């Protein structure tokens, strides 16, 4: 859109070029904020609501299960929670970069360093997304599968009927847990940041 003026008036070309970069910075920044917040939200919102003998919830990054007043520890879930660390790190760095990009855009300043950092972080987020999906299916899914059911024990005292445990998946999460929407989001984020970084390099080379 600025190509005709760029050739005839050098200063106009520079301004339009900067506008172009600022636009990329803003769009990529906004999308990165949206993406990282989605991932962070997914990490903290309860994925499963546990009811019955055991009450509580299970999220990606933490869980709370109680039987009466006694808190229950589950090693498998703790393992899954420790696995969310790289995803949190990745998402937080993307969030900081996204917020910085938007803040710079507000002051009409372009920062190429942000583009250069956001690009690899966005690419890595694709791996994080696959990784988180694997974590979920392998660990949390397995725990949930084993938690639900009737708790009846037969021993020397007789038949101990503790009750049943029902697990309800949050409707929002059941949509988000499908790998496709997250993967599409992460790929889109990577595409935006790639476009921005390529713009930065094309400007540097010119």
């Amino acid at each position, binding site marked *: 859109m600025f190509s005709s003026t760029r050739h005839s008036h050098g200063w106009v070309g520079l301004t339009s070029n900067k506008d172009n970069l600022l636009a990329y910075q803003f769009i990529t920044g906004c999308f990165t904020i949206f993406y990282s917040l989605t991932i962070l939200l997914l990490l903290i919102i309860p994925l499963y609501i546990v009811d019955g*003998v055991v009450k509580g919830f299970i999220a990606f990054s933490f869980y709370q299960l109680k039987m009466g007043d006694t808190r229950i520890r589950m090693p498998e879930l703790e393992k899954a929670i*420790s696995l969310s660390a790289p995803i949190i790190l990745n998402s937080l760095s993307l969030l900081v970069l996204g917020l910085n990009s938007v803040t710079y855009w507000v002051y009409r300043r372009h920062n190429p360093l942000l583009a250069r950092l956001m690009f690899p972080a966005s690419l890595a987020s694709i791996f994080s997304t696959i990784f988180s999906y694997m974590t979920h299916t392998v660990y949390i899914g397995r725990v949930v599968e*084993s938690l639900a059911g009737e708790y009846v024990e037969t021993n020397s005292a007789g038949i101990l009927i503790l009750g049943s445990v029902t697990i309800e998946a949050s409707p929002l999460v059941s949509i988000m847990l499908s790998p496709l929407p997250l993967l599409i989001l992460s790929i889109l984020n990577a595409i935006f940041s790639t476009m921005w970084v390529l713009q930065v390099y094309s400007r540097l080379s010119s």
Partner: protein
Amino acid sequence: MKERLREIIQISYVILIIAFSIGARFLPTPIGFFTVSGFSMYPTLKPGDLVIGVGSFITPYKEGDVVIYCVNVSTCVVHRLVLVNGTYAITKGDYNPSNDPPISTDSIRFKVIGTIPLLVWLPLTVVSLIFIFFPLSPRKGLKQAFLMETFVFLIFLLLNLTYLTIYVLQTPPAFTKLSLPSMSLASLYTENGYSTLIIDYHSTGLKIKEVEDCFLIAQSLTIQCSSYHVDGDRVLVHPPGEFYMFLFENNISAFMVKLTLSLEQGRLVGKYPFTVDWRRPVLEITNNKLVISNPNPIPIEILGYRIRSYGDGLKARYMGNVTEYSAPGFILQPFETEEIDLSWIPSQSYIEVRYVFFNQTFTWVGRIDK
């Protein structure tokens, strides 16, 4: 020219990766690459491992080989062959407890000849991709484009892979079992004769709230407990006298206590066996007294007793100088002890006590020496 060559390499690389990753699912390729996605073949194959297969039309397979068969385009399975029988074969995952359903031998596409762990093939693929699409020259140093990006990306990737390898892929997830509160039987005993039956529990994280139901069961008889109470982790049941009478009359020595307890979390239903040791009344003469004790939880009928006193000296004894004294019977209540004074008896005497036990009449004889 150089740029053209680079483009050719890039396109070839992409084609190669696509062909290797998904091509084998569609076409009868001589070599196929597949990634393991579960723990069914653990520890032979771990999730993420790259499996290299040679087409079954090139290398024959036999029982014990790891093969790849495809159910459809999207689902291929890497399992071990346990049986090949003409047109069908049976496979099994090394970590799976049972065999897979039979498959047609036509569906076996590859025989596995090797594997590359995730931590080797993924970084190699990523690094090669970086160098092909973003070629870095060591001569240019840090000034060159995409150098910082590459490093940042590799740090993130390494972090993810390290976590993935260390925490997820090394061991299969165990089936989680909750350490739930439990309640087991500590002991069963009776107190105060049989008037109190005590059921003692050992509980972890559970407390008895109340007794919902309590039944005493003996053969065809089932009666509700008349009295019971909870004392911490124990339940005390007081069976009524009629229950023991029923047992005694029917010559039964074993019975059950069926309890339904309401716990702070859940319920406990248990049947606890008890036995009654029916014993004859205990009779003894001590300190010029006849002591009769009833060790049973039922009344015992003493039909009566008779004392035969002999006169002093041999002559009196052989001449038949005998004095007799009789007393009427009485009922000896459960666990009751009756003492009969014998101090008035002047000389050596014999005492006969008759009582009824299990519908039979017994006679106990004791001697009093003076």
